[in-house]
């Protein structure tokens, strides 16, 4: 049975395009990492694209995103950080959004209200509560959205953030992207049936949704943001996705049940499913789709070129950004 499309055609095409952008960008990232061009670790988003894009589309430009969990790059893209700046940051180059000081785990873009990521998983939620407090005190109706994986919900800091957000009814939306694996530890061994149940003792609205359906994510996060914007406080959403990629590039995934993994790929790939849905509903044609992919491939190629051509930081740049100087009382700030 063909699933209906619940948003207008333009938005639907945008959703697909943005998911494909993440996919193509990450495939290229994987290649470049494999070739040794990108240092450090790389964690890819495969299977989370619908969740990232639905959430990103539900947010206004002035809403904050504090990224958590280990699936990062797709969220940076969904928040609108230009691809060249992300790629150059993955390369650790001067043209990166953080001038190479952050890398994959720390891409931030304050102008686009991307707070960035706490690489110690689960420590980005309390700062998100602080961002919500700041917006409330400044009298705006902006909200803070913060994501975490199933693994991160075991950190005390996650629960503290719920306590603090509830204490002042702050405009924060907690999204738990449950892909069922904290590296190799299965989420099914955690007690709650739905990880959004962690919001229940705090009397927060909770939702558990199919996070591989971009439209469902978009509608649910939009409603939560609307509640937060109108002063009705925080929400916890469990966005159930599958992880169609290793935890990090190089993970041998010995813990996976091969058959279940294959079935998940077959049934829960958010991009494949949405592509089919839009084609079947006549929202997009094969030809338009081909154009879309070709354009994205060109964009990604440009991003790689930008990153490659961007200079390595001078070693002295390692000493920049530790302190804003002069300290107070030592003269005018430079």
């Amino acid at each position: 049975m063909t699933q209906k499309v619940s948003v207008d055609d333009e938005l639907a095409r945008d959703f697909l395009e943005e998911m494909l952008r993440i996919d193509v960008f990450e495939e290229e990232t994987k290649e470049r990492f494999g070739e040794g061009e990108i240092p450090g670790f790389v964690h890819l988003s495969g299977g989370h694209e619908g969740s990232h894009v639905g959430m990103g589309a539900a947010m206004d430009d002035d809403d904050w995103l504090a990224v958590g969990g280990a699936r990062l790059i797709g969220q940076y893209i969904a928040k609108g950080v230009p691809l060249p700046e992300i790629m150059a940051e993955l390369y650790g180059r001067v043209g990166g959004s953080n001038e190479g000081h952050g890398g994959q785990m720390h891409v931030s873009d304050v102008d686009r209200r991307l707070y960035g990521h706490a690489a110690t998983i689960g420590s980005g939620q309390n700062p998100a509560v602080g961002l919500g407090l700041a917006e409330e005190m400044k009298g705006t109706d902006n909200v803070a959205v913060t994501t975490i994986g199933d693994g991160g919900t075991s950190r005390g800091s996650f629960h503290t953030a719920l306590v603090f957000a509830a204490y002042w009814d702050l405009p924060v939306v907690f999204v738990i992207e449950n892909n069922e694996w904290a590296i190799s530890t299965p989420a099914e061994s955690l007690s709650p049936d739905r990880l959004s149940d962690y919001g229940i003792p705090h009397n927060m609205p909770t939702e558990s949704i199919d996070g591989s359906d971009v439209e469902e994510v978009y509608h649910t996060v939009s409603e939560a943001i609307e509640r937060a914007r109108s002063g009705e406080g925080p929400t916890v959403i469990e966005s159930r996705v599958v992880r169609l990629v290793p935890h990090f590039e190089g993970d041998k995934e010995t813990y996976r049940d091969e058959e279940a993994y294959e079935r998940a790929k077959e049934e829960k790939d958010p991009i494949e499913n949405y592509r089919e849905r839009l084609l079947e509903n006549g929202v997009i044609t094969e030809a338009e789709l081909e154009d879309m992919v070709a354009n994205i491939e060109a964009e990604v190629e440009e991003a790689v070129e930008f990153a490659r051509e961007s200079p390595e930081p001078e070693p002295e740049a390692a000493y920049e950004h530790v302190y804003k100087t002069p300290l107070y009382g030592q003269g005018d700030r430079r």
Partner: protein
Amino acid sequence: MTREITYVQAIAEAIDEELQRDEDVVLFGEDVEEFGGNFGETEGLYEKHGRDRVRNTPLSEIGIAGMALGAAVGGIRPVAELQFADFAATAGDEVFNQIPKQPYVSGGQIEAPLTIFAPSGAGIGAGAQHSQSVHSWLGNVPGWVVVTATTPYDAKGLFKSAIRDDNPVFFLPHKMLSETKGEVPEEEYTLPLGEAAVEEEGEDVTVVATQLMFHRAKEAAAQVDADVEIVNPRTFAPLDTETIAESVRKTGRLVVVDETVERYGTQGHIANEIVENDFFSLDAPPKTIGVKEIPIPLSPPLEQEALPSADRIADGIESLF
């Protein structure tokens, strides 16, 4: 015009004036509202500034510190209290990994103009988990500005600067000094961060000391047959090495007294700065005095044994001649 007020009154005045001056300043922490803080350091602020600006929090340093970080990034200037400096450890990730590093890893995009303040130091029989001096922990993580206060004058002037500074500042008053009185100007003033003060001039030996140890160093100076110069670092990180070095160039001798544990403590770092860069200005090896390698015990005689006494400082000074 000056008047005598206590150290905690000076702290309360500093917060009060900054709440008044800048509407982006907000104070939060456990029991900062009607209760007025454990030592009276936030007394009257809630009544005067209201619940939007002075906020009680639930009991979690993780929440207090983490929320302060986000609020600062979001454009307000949080002043957050932890009830004891030891509790920096209960917000370990926020204090050691997040706050001091987010501005750096963002490539300078993120500003975190927050102040965390927390009473530190031993002497009131509060035991091993409420009596530590933590500036060596914090000073070891680049990104924190670490400030202490020795007198009411210091406490007010430095705290106001801490709130105005655009870096994350950890401000560490000393709980034994809470009720000590000192002269504080009537009119508004601030003291520069990152600058040490030569509090007492002398020719024979430089003693570097802050907080309670400054007062004990003064007692020790009165006991010894030497002309002692006392330098108060005020800011531990970044450290004003130059003022200390200048003093040692004059006196040729250095004693560093501090309440951090001697093993990997601030004393060793300060002494090393001089040994490495100004070795030939020294007429004797530097002496470092701190808490021995024990947690702070509770029983008063045990606690006083753990802390550098005026006698131990005096012996340390004399050992250099």
